[in-house]
């Protein structure tokens, strides 16, 4: 799994393997640091395959982690920090795509499929019921009474 991530490592940063968050990056205040970690998990390392900046070893991720902490120390709220980063790097940096015109199908898609699926099943069941009723209506009244009594005895 993640072959491409690995390939990317190979190409990108042969000899600079750092390891995600480093002790010297971290804030002394544990509450602020926890917020920084939380925000980091929502932001993508732009030069990696599908990795958040908290997990990534790339230099860019390192810079972004410092930037996030800098903004937090300056008193930004979580939303402001994220907005600050998005202003500079675009929507691409968000691991949770924002709900806007070009992501409408993305967010609505699963609901749409669920809706279509549910309606198809409803229609299918209705049709099947009608067909089974049709089978019964072919019978003479005596036969139908017999079928009815058999069904009732069983239950």
């Amino acid at each position: 799994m993640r072959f491409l991530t690995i390939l990317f490592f190979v190409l990108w940063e042969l000899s600079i393997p750092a390891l995600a968050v480093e002790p010297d990056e971290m804030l002394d205040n544990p509450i602020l640091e926890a917020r920084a970690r939380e925000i980091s998990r929502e932001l993508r390392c732009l030069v990696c395959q599908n990795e958040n900046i908290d997990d990534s070893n790339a230099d860019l991720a390192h810079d972004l982690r410092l930037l996030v902490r800098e903004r937090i120390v300056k008193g930004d709220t979580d939303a402001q920090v994220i907005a600050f980063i998005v202003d500079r790097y675009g929507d691409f940096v968000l691991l949770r795509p924002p709900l806007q015109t070009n992501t409408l199908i993305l967010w609505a898609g699963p609901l749409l499929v669920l809706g279509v699926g549910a309606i198809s099943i409803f229609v299918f069941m209705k049709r099947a019921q009608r067909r089974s009723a049709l089978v019964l209506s072919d019978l003479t009244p005596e036969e139908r009474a017999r079928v009815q009594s058999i069904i009732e005895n069983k239950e």
Partner: protein
Amino acid sequence: MIIELGHFALILAFCMAVIQCVIPLIGAERGDVGWMNVARPCALIQAALIIFSFAALMYAFVTSDFSVVSVVENSHSAKPMLYKISGVWGNHEGSMVLWVLILSVFGAMVALFGTALAPSFKARVLGVQGALGAAFLLFIITTSNPFRRVFPAPVDGNGLNPLLQDPGLAFHPPFLYLGYVGFSVTFAFAVAALLEGQVNASWARWVRPWTLGAWAALTVGIALGSYWAYYELGWGGWWFWDPVENASLMPWLAGTALLHSSVVTEKRGVLKSWSILLAILAFSLSLLGTFLVRSGVLTSVHAFAVDPRRGIFVLLILAVFVGGSLTLYALRAPLLKADSFFAPISREGGLVLNNLLLTVAAATVLIGTLYPLILEGVDGGPITVGPPFFNMTFGPLMVALLVIMPFGPMLAWKRADLLGAAQRLWWAGLLAAVTVLTVLTIVRQGPYLAALGIGLGVWLICGAIAEWTSRIKLFSEKTSRAWARARNLPRSAYGTALGHAGMGVLVLGITGVSAWRVEKIEALAPGQSMNVAGYNFQLESIAKVQGPNYWANRAVVQVTQGENHVVTLYPEKRSYPVAGMATTEAAIYTHWISDLYVVLGDRQGTPESGAWAVRVYRNPLVDFIWIGAIIMALGGMISLSDRRLRIGLPARRRVVPPSAPLPAE
């Protein structure tokens, strides 16, 4: 010489595959038995040729024949033997040969053991298999030839990517491919059934074992990959919603749906066309996965455009087989008539709901995986679809599915009594509720959702047990008679219960590690220590050690809990000079039900300080994730051994890899 023979065998196999496709299909259409019978020898010869070809390639890797390009690019004389062998499929060309190898061996198995199949049906199944084989063999021969020579031969090779030099990953691709390619057989059965224009109970009985086998192999393959990511990538995650992971999850979801719908088709003769569609979808998603991973389209649409030869070829294969089968489906599916009816509340109804949720989940993963690619393709702006999206969409669907799961097996066919099912599950529900309350009282400050997650896991496990006890009437009749029932219970019932319980174990693992993981990162000099979750981790020393094809900084970390010494851990940071790469080797120790996970980071501060970054995690219940997956796969295998599934076919079949080409080690 052996290399050229292997190459030649591959080309011959292609010719065989073309004959296996064309002649039997025409024969089946005309009703010409002679033409139909061509399929069997073709399938056998094709398999023999590909086995030989694969063996020749393996010979090149084992003997480190550096006049072969793919050996140069992916092997090295100093590499341990296991990785020389796994290097055969640890690269694009070799992995495609493994793909057709499994395909042709499965084809040969259908040819050998499918004696109970109607001649025309068997000819069509093998014909479709031949078409698949021909397409992929042509792909290998024209775009990804593993037998290409290089002159002059270099002295040594480039080595296999160090991250891939790992036992977990050595066996990950073969299992994954057994799953992907296993679905090719159900696909061939589906297309053949559409060509024949009929689906009956025996069709479903044929499709079920192949689905079960492919599904179990895929489950193991995904679990292996996830476990590998957990211990090798060094930050203790186990699932990343990476497109490559999603590529294997989608066929798994569709396969799980097929597993359930084929039961309905077999037992009740309904949902025929739906089962056919799922069989087509499961394999189409496998093909899509192959395309996504093999074309380079994932890195970027633009990277794909730079060298599109392979990508376009696979896309073409995808278009022909998916498009062709779906067109055929649209034409023929209306001919398939249901044999019976069912009420909304019934076992059938439950399975329909199961299928709805599973297919919507698969569609969600598909949308999330492809959307950014498509948007980039139409210049809609680059966006990222990451884990938060999947957790928000896929998560609720799965939770809904799991909450209703224990009810399914309790419902009667045709028309069921929901209240009765609930009555038989009351104690499972009670236990789950008690668990939720207990967890809430133990961990006061939340996260509260975690208590529900643990409760859900307990609900699934107890639900599976309740299904078993109510089937053998353990509490309602004499115990001796219950045991007699337990012995006579079909194995597929045990398989179902195990599969569902395994899912419960998996849920416990996911909840535990997501909610209560503890993480700490500190710079430690030798002699210093840190406290994590009641354990003391002391960095005793760090020394350079030499491995077979790497050197490493290895730390000695003493873990103590109070007065007691728990374990000595040796996390490493390795350098592979041939590849010019470094990897981290996490040290993992399972203490009670938590993993202690230690990773050695970089040197910190000035060289004199001697400090290193050390990350420590405590991951509660994390191993339950893979244990659960293995239990599920085991359930699949036990179902597979059910006598009823062997009717019409001899005992020896599927997931066991073919003996000749895949080494035991």
